[in-house]
C-alpha cells in the first residue's frame, strides 16, 4: 500500500431512508431505516459491483473476440476488438490491484503498451508479419502481444492475412491470460481497510484523470510541455483504429460508476458532498464534450474542442484533489514527465 492511514473505523450509518434499500448498481448505497453500513461495506460494494463486474465484462469481451478470431470477417473482429478495448479501459482506469498485491503490479504492462518505451511497435510487427517462422516465438515480447499490437494487426490496413490472423490469436490468448488473472484477483480481493481503501481508490482516480488529461489528450493535441505546440494525431491512444474517443469515454464512465456506486456517499458522509458533486458534474461535462465530436478525434488534433476537453479533465483532477482535501488527506502531487 502506498499510503499510511489510521486504524479507525468509519461507519456509514444509514437511517431514515425510504425504500430502495439495497445497492442498485447504478445509483449508490442506500440503507434501510436503522441500517448501519460500514465503510468496509461501501468499499466492498465498489469492489464487487464495479471492479469485479468490469473485470468480468472484460473477460467476456475477450471470449467473444476469441470465438470469432479464427474465421470471422475483419469488420466483425474490429467491432469485437473495440468492445474489448472499451472494457479494458474501464478496468485499467480503476486498476487498484497493484496497490493491493505485488503479484498484480506487472499485469497492466503485459496488456497495454500505450505510452511505454520507445520501441517502434508497428515496425516490429511488420517485420514479424513478413517472416515465416513460428508466431509464438516471433511474438515473445509482451508488447507484441498487447492490446495495441492487436489493434495494429486488425486495423493497419484493409486486409487480414492468414499470418496476421494467426498472430491475432496468439495476442488474444496472451491478453485473455492476463484478463483472467485480474478477474480472479477481484473475486478474492477488493478494497478494504477503511480509510486506506478510500485512499487507494482516490489515488487511482487521480492517477487515471492525470493520464487521461496528459497522455490521452494533451500530448496528441500539443498541450503539454513534451509536445508543446506540436499536435500530432498519431499520439492519440488508439490512432490506428480511430478509437481514442471510445477509450476516453470508457475511462470517464468508469469514474462515473465509482462515484455512483459508493464514493459519492462516502464523501457526503464526511461532509464532502459538494466536492463529490463537483466531480460528478465534471465527469458529465466531459462526457458531453466527447459526445459532441461527430468524427474521430484523430481527424484533427488541432480541433479547439480538444483544448476544452483537456481543461475539463484538468478540472476533474482538481476536483479529486479538492475531495482529498475535504476528507482531510495530506496530499503530495507529483506532476511527472515534466508536464
Amino acid at each position, binding site marked *: 500500500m502506498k499510503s499510511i492511514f489510521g486504524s479507525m473505523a468509519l461507519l456509514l450509518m444509514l437511517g431514515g431512508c425510504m425504500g430502495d434499500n439495497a445497492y442498485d448498481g447504478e445509483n449508490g448505497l442506500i440503507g434501510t431505516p436503522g441500517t448501519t453500513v460500514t465503510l468496509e461495506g461501501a468499499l466492498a460494494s465498489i469492489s464487487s459491483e464495479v471492479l469485479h463486474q468490469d473485470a468480468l465484462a472484460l473477460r467476456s469481451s475477450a471470449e467473444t473476440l476469441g470465438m470469432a478470431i479464427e474465421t470471422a470477417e475483419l469488420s466483425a473482429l474490429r467491432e469485437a476488438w473495440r468492445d474489448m478495448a472499451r472494457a479494458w479501459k474501464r478496468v485499467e482506469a480503476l486498476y487498484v490491484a497493484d496497490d493491493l498485491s505485488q503479484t498484480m*503490479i506487472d499485469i497492466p504492462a503485459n496488456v497495454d503498451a500505450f505510452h511505454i518505451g520507445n520501441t517502434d511497435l508497428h515496425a516490429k510487427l511488420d517485420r514479424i508479419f513478413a517472416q515465416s517462422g513460428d508466431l509464438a516465438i*516471433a511474438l515473445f515480447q509482451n508488447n507484441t502481444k498487447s492490446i495495441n499490437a492487436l489493434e495494429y494487426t486488425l486495423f493497419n490496413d484493409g486486409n487480414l492475412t492468414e499470418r496476421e490472423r494467426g498472430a491475432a490469436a496468439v495476442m488474444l490468448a496472451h491478453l485473455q491470460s492476463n484478463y483472467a488473472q485480474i478477474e480472479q484477483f477481484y473475486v478474492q480481493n477488493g478494497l478494504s481497510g477503511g*480509510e486506506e481503501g478510500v*485512499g487507494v481508490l482516490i489515488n487511482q482516480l487521480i492517477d487515471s484523470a492525470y493520464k487521461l488529461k496528459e497522455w490521452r489528450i494533451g500530448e496528441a493535441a500539443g498541450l503539454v510541455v513534451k509536445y508543446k505546440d506540436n499536435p500530432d494525431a498519431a499520439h492519440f491512444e488508439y490512432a490506428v483504429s480511430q478509437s481514442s474517443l471510445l477509450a476516453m469515454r470508457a475511462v470517464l464512465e468508469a469514474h462515473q460508476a465509482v462515484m455512483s456506486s459508493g464514493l459519492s456517499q462516502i464523501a457526503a458522509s464526511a461532509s464532502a458532498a459538494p466536492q463529490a458533486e463537483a466531480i460528478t458534474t465534471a465527469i458529465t461535462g466531459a462526457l458531453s464534450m466527447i459526445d459532441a465530436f461527430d468524427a474521430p478525434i484523430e481527424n484533427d488534433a488541432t480541433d479547439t474542442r480538444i483544448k476544452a476537453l483537456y481543461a475539463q479533465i484538468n478540472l476533474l483532477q482538481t476536483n479529486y484533489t479538492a475531495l482529498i482535501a475535504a476528507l482531510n488527506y495530506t496530499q503530495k502531487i507529483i506532476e511527472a514527465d515534466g508536464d
Partner: protein
Amino acid sequence: MKPSKHLLGALSLSAALVLGMSACNGGGGGDTSSSSLSSATSSASSSSATVVSEADKKAFLRGYAHVALLSYEDALLGAKALQSALAAFTANPTEVTLASAKAAWIEAREAYSPSEIFRLSGGPIDAEEGWVAEAYGALEGQINAWPLDEAMIDYTLDADGARTAGNIIDTAGSFTPSGGEAVDVSAISVDALSALNENGGEANVATGYHAIEFLLWGQDQDYDNFVADTITHGQTTAGQRPLSDYTTDANAQRRKAYLNAAAAKLVDDLERVAGAWRTTREGNTGRYRAAFLGELTGAEASDNIATDAALKAIFGGMGVFLKSELANERIAVAVLTPSEEDEHSCFSDNTHRDILLNFQGFTNVMRNQYPAGTALQSAKPMGELVKAFTQAQLSDLVAQITAHVNAIDATAKSSQHFDYQVRPTEFSLDSGVARQNIIDAKNKMRQLGDMMVSVAADFGISLSEEDVTDAEETVVE
C-alpha cells in the same frame, strides 16, 4: 511495470467518524444532503521520534566509509589483476590465456559489484556537481557504463544475420559515434577511448568493464529473437568470440590495443575513486572521506558534509540503487519485456553474479561487514540501530531477497543462465519457476528500496518515496 501513480494521498484523519445518513429518498438516489459528521475521536498517529543517537550516527558514517574503502580497494586490486591478465593474453593470445583473461574479468566483477551500493549518494563514484565532481570526475560512467551499443566497438551479427561494420575497431582514422563528435582512432589509446565514451549518447560506451567484456566474450544475443537463440546455442552458453579475432584477423592488433587501453583506464579510474575514501590525505586522496566525516579543517572546512545530510544522501542512494537501478533497470526490464539485451552482463552471462553481488553490497552496509559475513567492529550495524519494528521488517525482507538471488545464482550455475531464466513462461525450461523467482526478487527489492524511508526516519532523517525512486526509471514495455 506500472508507472508511479501521480498523486499519493496520506490520510491524516485522526478520528473515528460515525456518519449518519438519514432522510434518504427513494429511487436509489441516496440523497446525502442531510448526512452529517456525528462524532470524532482522536487516535494517535505513530511518532517517528529518532532512536539513533548522534554518536551512533557518526559511528555509522565511519563504518560506511570503512566498508566503502575496503570495497573500492578490492575493486582496484581486481582491476589490476585484470590488467595483468589482459597484458598476458594480448602478448600471447591462446585459448589458455583467453580463458585466464575471462576468469580475471569475472574476478574483477566479483570485487567491483558490491561497491555499487555507494552510487547515487553524491559520493566520489558519481557525484555530478560541486567540488566532489570536480575532484573525482564522476567516473562511474567510464567504469561501468551500461547498457552499451556493442556494435560501436566491434562487429556483431545484426537482426538479419549480417555482419556489422563501421566501428571503432575497424575504422582507421576518424570515428564518429552515432550522434556524436569525431575522434581520431588511428591509435587506440586511453585518451581516444575516453573521448569516445558516451560521446553522442549514453549507449555509446567505449570504456569500462562491459566494453572489455564484449571484447573478450563477443556477442551472445540473437538480435532478431533471443528466444530463437541462433547466435550462441544453449541455456548455459555465453558469447563465443573466436580466438582468431586476436590472432589471424586483420584487426587483431587493434583489439589488443583496445583491451590494454581500456584496462589501463579502468585501473586509473578506480584508483581515483578508491583514493577518495582513503584515510591518508594528499591532494584529493582522502579528501572525500574527511569531508564525509566532517573532518576537513581550515580553508577546506566549508566542504564538510553535515551528518544528517550525509545520512540522507546514503539512505536515498541505497534506496534508489536497489529500487530503480537494480530492481528495475537491471532486472525488471530484462524479465518483463522480456529482453536479453537488457541483462546486465549479457556477453559473459555473468548477470547472476552482478545481481547477487549488488545485493551483497547492500547487506554489507546494513550489517557493517566486509567481506560478506565478516563483521567489522567500527560501528553498530545500521540494521541494529533502527527501531525493532523496522529491524524485523528489514531482516525479513533481506532474508527473502537473499533466498531469491541465491536461487538465481544457483540456477545460472547449474542449468540455465539468466537469459534463459527470463524467457517467457511458454518457452521456459522449468514452466516459469525461475522467471517468477526473478520477478519476486525485483518486487521485494523495490519494497526494500522503499523501506529506506523508514530506516531514514529512525535516524531522524526525512525521506519520501520519491527520494528513493529515480523519476526517470524505465517503464517496462
